[in-house]
C-alpha cells in the first residue's frame, strides 16, 4: 500500500451533499463533528469546497433538478474519491421512491462505494461506515 493511501485513511476530508433529503441525515452528519462523536479524532473534517474532498457523503433521493448537479459534482471532485450514500433515501429512495420528481437512487448515476442505511442513520453508524470504506482502500 502506498504512503499516500495510508495517509488518506488517516485524513478523510468530508464533503457533504444533500440531493433532496429531509435533512435529518445532514444533521446527523454534522452531529458527527460535535463533542459527543468528534470525528476529528480520526482526522476527518468537513470541508467547504468539493476540490478539497476525499469522501462524499450524499444523502437524499436525488430530485430531478439535483441530478445534473450531482453528476457534475462527482466530476469536479479530485480522485481518488469515495462516495457514500447516506440514509434510506440515499440508498434506495426510501419513502419518496414514487415521487414524480425523484430520479434516484444515486448509484444509477455515480459509483457509490458504500451505503449507510437508516432513517436517519445514527452518527455512530455514519462513523463506522466511513471507517469501513477507508479500510477497503
Amino acid at each position, binding site marked *: 500500500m502506498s504512503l499516500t493511501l495510508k495517509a*488518506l485513511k*488517516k485524513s478523510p476530508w468530508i464533503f457533504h451533499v444533500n440531493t433532496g433529503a429531509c435533512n435529518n441525515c445532514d444533521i446527523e452528519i454534522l452531529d458527527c463533528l460535535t463533542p459527543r462523536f468528534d470525528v476529528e479524532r480520526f482526522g476527518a473534517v468537513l*470541508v467547504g469546497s468539493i*476540490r478539497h474532498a476525499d469522501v462524499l457523503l450524499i444523502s437524499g433521493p436525488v430530485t430531478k433538478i439535483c441530478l445534473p448537479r450531482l453528476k457534475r459534482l462527482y466530476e469536479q471532485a479530485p480522485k481518488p474519491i469515495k462516495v457514500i450514500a447516506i440514509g434510506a433515501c440515499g440508498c434506495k429512495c426510501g419513502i419518496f421512491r414514487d415521487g414524480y420528481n425523484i430520479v434516484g437512487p444515486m448509484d444509477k448515476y455515480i459509483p457509490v462505494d458504500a451505503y449507510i442505511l437508516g432513517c436517519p442513520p445514527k452518527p455512530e453508524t455514519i462513523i463506522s461506515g466511513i471507517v469501513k470504506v477507508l479500510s477497503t482502500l
Partner: protein
Amino acid sequence: MLDPIYIVYYLIFPGFLFTAVAGLLTTWVDRKVSARVQWRVGPPWFQPFADMIKLLGKEVIVPVGARRTGFLLWPVVGLAAATLASMILWLSNLWPGTSFVGDTIVVIYIMTIPAISMILGASASSNPLGIVGASREMKLLFAYELPLVIAVLTTIYKVGSFSFQAVLAHQAQEGVMLGSVSGVIAFIVAIFCTQAKLNLLPFDIPEAETELAGGSHIEYSGAALAVVKLNMAIMFFVMPVFLITVFWGGIAFTGWHILTSILKYVAIVVILVLIKNTNPRVRIDQAVRFFWGPMFILSVAAMVLAVLGY
C-alpha cells in the same frame, strides 16, 4: 555573493524542512487546543502530516478559465517567500551577526508575499467566490498593515535601527520590549494583526468556510492545496517567532533559554488559538474599521508613549 552554506540553511535548518515540520506541528497545536476548548478530543499529533501526504496523492484539478502555470505557481512562490522570511528570522536570532540593517522591513515585506501569492492564485482561478475571497484578503492586508507597522516601529524607534541584531541586543541590555507600557500596547496590537495575517478567527474573512466555501483557495486541490496549507502552516510558525523577536527578547538555543524560548512560542500560539476560539468572524468592513480605528489609535498611543520614553 552566494555562500553555499545559505542553501543548506535555506533547505534544512532553519529553512524549509525545519520550518515546515515546526509549522505543521503548530497547526496541530492549534487544532488540538481548539478541540479541547470545544470539549472534543482533537486529532492525533501526526494529523497535519497525514493531511499533507494524503493531498500529495490526490488529483490536481485546474478549472477551465484558470491559467495552469500561474494557478499552480503562485502557492509555490508564497512558500518560497515564507521560508525565506523564516530563515532570515531564525538566522538573526541564532547568529546575530548575519543580520543586516534593514531586515525588519525586509521581513515585513516578505511576509506579505504569501498573502499576495494567495490572492493572485485565487484571482487566477477565475472563481467568483475565490475572487471575493481574494479581494477580502487584500483589504484585510492593507487594513492590518498600518497598525502592525506602527506597532513594530515602536520597537524600531526605541532601538533606532531596523536590524534584528540591534533589536535583540537592545532587548538583551535594557530588558524586553514587553517590559514597558508602550511595548505591551504595541504587542497587543501586533497580536491582533497576527490574527488577521494568519487568517484566524475573527479575521478568517478571506476563507470564510461558511460564506465563501474556502474563499481564496476554493479551487485548489491535491498537491497545490498541500502547498497552500503548508504555506499557511509556515506562516503560523513564522509570525509568533517574529513577535517574539520584536517584542519578547528573541529566541536563543543556549542553556535554559531553550526552555524559555519554547515556552514563549507556545504561549503566543495558545493566545492566538484562544482568541480564535472565542470570537465569531467579523465582516470585512468591520475588520477594516477595527484596524484603522481602535487598533490604529492604540498603536499610535504606543508610539507616542515610546517617544515619551515609557
